[in-house]
């Protein structure tokens, strides 16, 4: 009798967590895929099966294609800037002193603040008439920009906000990665009279590659899901220039009540995020362990 209890115990212990995951993560995904083949306005008692109609309609929709393009553009710019700048910054700031800790803390601080705060703050900084950013430009004799109000600059403005928020996090993750490189290795390289650039390219970069992959993927996935800044700062405008996937799904689901159609867009997001995740795990298992 006790041996049966012993055997059931592990299942009982993981059960609560797994119930939550199945109920709120795994089942909804199946449900969403199911809904994407239907037409439903949320209020009507009937869901009409429409096959691939939602997908067909979506792929024919110019707005959706623009949304995809916006998402991709936003993601690529954010990831390149946020991880590309973070690495040199990490190498520059990687020292253990009170001053360095202060600098690291300062650049990290936006990461722990609500995106609502950040969005409101930057809306004000980017105010086309009285904003601080235009004030700065004025100091250098540059004529003011319209930032979020101009379809040409709105998406880039959002990228700036995203980079400002995530730069510190990326830098600190890089620093953690740098500090996990055994110092003996760097000392050995110095004794071998390796030039700094060579040390970086042949030693530091390969040792840092797991961290780099991690950050790129996390930033990619995160950027594809951007919502808060758009909802608060631009509502997808002007003229859809900042409309991205999650906001698009949100609008179709909660403003136009086209549940099936929104679900189909959700499935597209699922495919993108899933692919990125798989690539990450594939790369992780294949080439990145020096430790």
């Amino acid at each position, binding site marked *: 009798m006790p041996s049966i209890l012993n055997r059931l115990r*592990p299942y009982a212990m*993981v059960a609560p967590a797994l119930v939550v995951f199945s109920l709120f993560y795994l089942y909804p995904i199946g449900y969403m895929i199911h*809904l994407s083949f239907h037409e439903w306005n949320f209020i009507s008692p009937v869901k009409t099966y429409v096959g691939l109609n939602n997908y067909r309609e979506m792929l024919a929709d110019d707005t959706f294609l623009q949304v995809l393009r916006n998402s991709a553009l936003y993601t690529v710019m954010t990831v390149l800037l946020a991880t590309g700048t973070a690495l040199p910054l990490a190498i520059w700031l990687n020292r253990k002193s009170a001053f360095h800790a*202060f600098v690291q803390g300062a650049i990290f601080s936006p990461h722990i603040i609500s995106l609502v705060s950040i969005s409101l703050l930057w809306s*004000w900084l980017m105010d086309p008439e*009285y904003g601080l950013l235009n004030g700065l430009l004025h100091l250098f004799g540059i004529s003011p920009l319209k930032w979020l109000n101009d379809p040409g600059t709105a998406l880039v403005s959002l990228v700036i906000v995203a980079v400002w928020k995530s730069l510190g996090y990326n830098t600190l993750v890089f620093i*953690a990665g740098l500090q996990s490189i055994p110092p003996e290795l760097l000392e050995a390289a110095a004794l071998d009279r390796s030039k700094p650039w060579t040390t970086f390219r042949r030693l530091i970069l390969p040792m840092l590659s797991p961290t780099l992959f991690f950050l790129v993927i996390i930033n990619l996935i995160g950027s594809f899901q951007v919502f808060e800044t758009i909802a608060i700062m631009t509502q997808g405008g002007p003229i859809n220039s900042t409309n991205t996937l*999650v906001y698009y799904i949100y609008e179709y689901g909660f403003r136009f009540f086209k549940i099936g159609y929104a679900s189909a867009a*959700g499935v597209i997001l699922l495919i993108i*995020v899933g692919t990125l995740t798989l690539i990450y795990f594939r790369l992780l298992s294949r080439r990145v362990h020096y430790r």
Partner: protein
Amino acid sequence: MSMNDAGRRSAIGQAAGVRRPLAVRRIRAVLEAMLFAANRACMLLLVCAFALPFAWMLSTSLKTLPETMIFPPEWIPAEPVWSNYAVAWNSGPFLTYLLNSFIVSVGILILQMLTIIPAAYAFARFRFPGKGLLFGLVMATLMIPAQLIFLPVYLMLSDWKLLNTHLALILPFASSAFGIFLLRQSFMQTAEELIEAARLDNAPEWKIMLRIMAPLARPVLVTFALFSFITHWNDYFWPLVMTTNESARTLPLGIAKIRETEGTATWNVLMAANVMLAVPVLLAFFAAQRQIIRAFVYSGVK
């Protein structure tokens, strides 16, 4: 890093017995001091890029409305207008928002602790058929963001008549794949002898978990708790989707809503509200910077 390298290279130079004339050495020393100063100055400039926006937020929150409409902008208001904070606070049921935020964040944290400790313990300690599959399931949810499943979850919660309740904001986060992953890692590092000693002391399994293993994993639990609390305290997306009623909405939603009640251009009031939302978190951050940074960066180094 660059400073490090310079130091190391000069140390090697000296070790090799290269002696330079006094004048050259002196010039070098001056150059190095200047470089050091320039380096520090650049870092301070970097700090400004992150500190100035917050300073600007504070400054604006103390201005009169006309003062916000001066171009080029001015930093110091003629007379600080503290009443902006009162206006912001009275523009909505902020006490309710605050309370809701607290109930939701703490509620999530408690449920998470209840679910992740046993799960992580079972995954770390026992061998059982299907363990690999179940753990794979946990890891899969680690990669599913809320932004992906909000629509079907909304429909489910609507069916269960749970929209506009605290439960709608708490239940979906009642467990955490990230937490299970972290804690399992920590449990696996605990010395086997301690568990054996406890078994010889006739301790039942739950006691080994709660009295021996959990206290040993306390740093990880604290780290995770900080991460979880801050994440849900700040969350805007989920409460926005799951609630429409003021009575269930949280602080970030309330702050964002001021724009509608007080008008888009009342930046002084908006920034006052923003200070109320951001500054407590920032203060907490500077009080426990090391812990909080570790909490967030942990996931990146594994």
